[in-house]
């Protein structure tokens, strides 16, 4: 069990398609995760709904543009905006991805994988500490889906995450779907990945859907969570105990009730695992 980290329960990614319904219906969602960049604006609809929802629910900030492994200097303007947003919504924590999303000259707007080498490890660890100094809190980093990997890797991805969390004191956001997608694409055992992470550092889990093309799998967030990912999620909860769980959907948005039903499935799995663990204790 992730004994040292509190569990927020079961949350949904906040998307504009559902803003009004959330305010009108106050759905049984324990918390919402917001994409930080969507709210780095000066006014209007997004901030209005963010303020209203943050008054009613705990909020976690999840960024996509920090580019912690990028070849550029960390962007002070971005970090300042992130800090201002954090002061506004008082998030339970702030996460981003173990990746690079900006190149030498341009923004690439993707979560690109890093080579898992000693050079990358020390480079990223130093930058994580810089970000934590600005934000004055641990940064939570998520494993990404990937479609190529560096031939020069000196660590597995899970060994890299483990070493990074020890070197920098960052925490981890374990995306179960991303583990599954990458395991299919690269041919590793997803359970070995999950077991290889430092359990006490796992702050949050992500669940999402993907599209299966047979020879490879793409992380699309446009459909329900697949059966193999549910099975891996259950196994993960049995291993870690209760961990804050977030269901993501970024395309082909279904009626809100469908997402609530899917979230309820995660909650039921979590409750049954917890009950079994209590019986065994």
């Amino acid at each position: 069990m992730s004994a040292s980290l509190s569990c927020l329960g079961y949350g949904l990614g906040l998307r504009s398609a559902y803003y009004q319904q959330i305010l009108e219906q106050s759905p049984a969602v324990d918390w919402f995760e917001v994409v930080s960049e969507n709210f780095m604006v000066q006014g209007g609809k997004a901030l209005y709904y963010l303020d209203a929802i943050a008054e009613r629910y705990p909020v976690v900030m999840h960024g996509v543009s920090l580019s912690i492994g990028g070849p550029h200097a960390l962007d002070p303007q971005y970090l300042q905006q992130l800090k201002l947003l954090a002061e506004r919504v008082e998030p339970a924590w702030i996460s981003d991805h173990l990746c690079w999303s900006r190149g030498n000259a341009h923004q690439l707007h993707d979560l690109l994988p890093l080579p898992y080498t000693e050079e990358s490890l020390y480079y990223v660890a130093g930058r994580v500490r810089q970000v934590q100094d600005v934000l004055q809190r641990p940064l939570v980093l998520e494993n990404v889906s990937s479609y190529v990997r560096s031939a020069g890797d000196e660590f597995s991805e899970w060994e890299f995450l483990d070493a990074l969390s020890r070197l920098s004191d960052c925490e981890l956001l374990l995306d179960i779907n991303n583990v599954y997608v990458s395991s299919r694409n690269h041919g590793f055992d997803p359970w070995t990945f999950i077991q290889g992470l430092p359990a006490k550092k796992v702050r949050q889990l992500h669940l999402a859907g993907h599209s299966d093309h047979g020879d490879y799998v793409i992380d699309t967030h446009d459909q329900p969570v697949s059966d193999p990912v549910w099975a891996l999620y259950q196994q993960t909860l049995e291993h870690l105990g209760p961990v804050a769980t977030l269901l993501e959907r970024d395309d082909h948005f279904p009626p809100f009730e469908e997402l609530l039903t899917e979230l309820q499935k995660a909650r039921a799995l979590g409750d049954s695992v917890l009950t079994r663990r209590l019986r065994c204790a």
Partner: protein
Amino acid sequence: MRLNDWQLAFETYLLGEQTAADTALGASLMGGPTLDVSTGLAIYHNAYQARLQEVLRGDYPVIWHWLGDDEFEQLAAAYIRQCPSVHYSLRWLGEGFESFIRQHLVPEQSAALGELAALEWAFTLAFDAPEGAPLTIQDMAALKPEDWPTLRVSPSPSVQWLECAFNSVALWRAVKDETGFPGSAALGAPQVLVIWRAGLVCHYRSLEPAEAAALNGLFQGDWDFAELCSELAVICGEDAPLQAVTWLKQWVQDGWLQPRIIESSY
């Protein structure tokens, strides 16, 4: 390859037109049991293009409708190549689209399309502009008589000002209402369009030339209320103060005005 060199090669590949990678980048990567390196790289290449194209379609739905899927995709791809994203938020990807259109296309094509791009971008600017502190009717009622002549205002943060030579508003309206697309046409006379946000909703209004000139005098001409009345006297005679107050009331009700901060002289 060192981390920085590898990332530079990856970036060059993503921004390029070809989905085939150069030998050095390909050799630095590994695929999986059933996913080879070239397919894996192509997934990233396609995703980069698709993501940026989707953002531009979202910001410029009327131009997309006008040009159709293929022509819009070509124009957007040329824009992305010439002006790759430099802001961490995709919110700002389309900022240079109007200017790109005016430079990239011949004037016969670009004049109407560029104006439409300016109109669509203005809506995005109004959409998430700061709230500001617009003057209210109550503020105006509380204004002392001696302060009226020297009253100066500036536009509220969401107010966008466009001078249209084409029927861009009709094109925009047709796509919004999903009615027949009228086709582009030059207007008989240029028309000023104001776009703004009230609460959470964006609005627009075309101004008659006299009203546009009066408002422009306040915003750009540094007029105070007394100058507005004297300028209006030329066309309205002794009704000038009444006309000025009528317009002022409308502009205040629409939330277009905020007090101009006068820098202290000491």
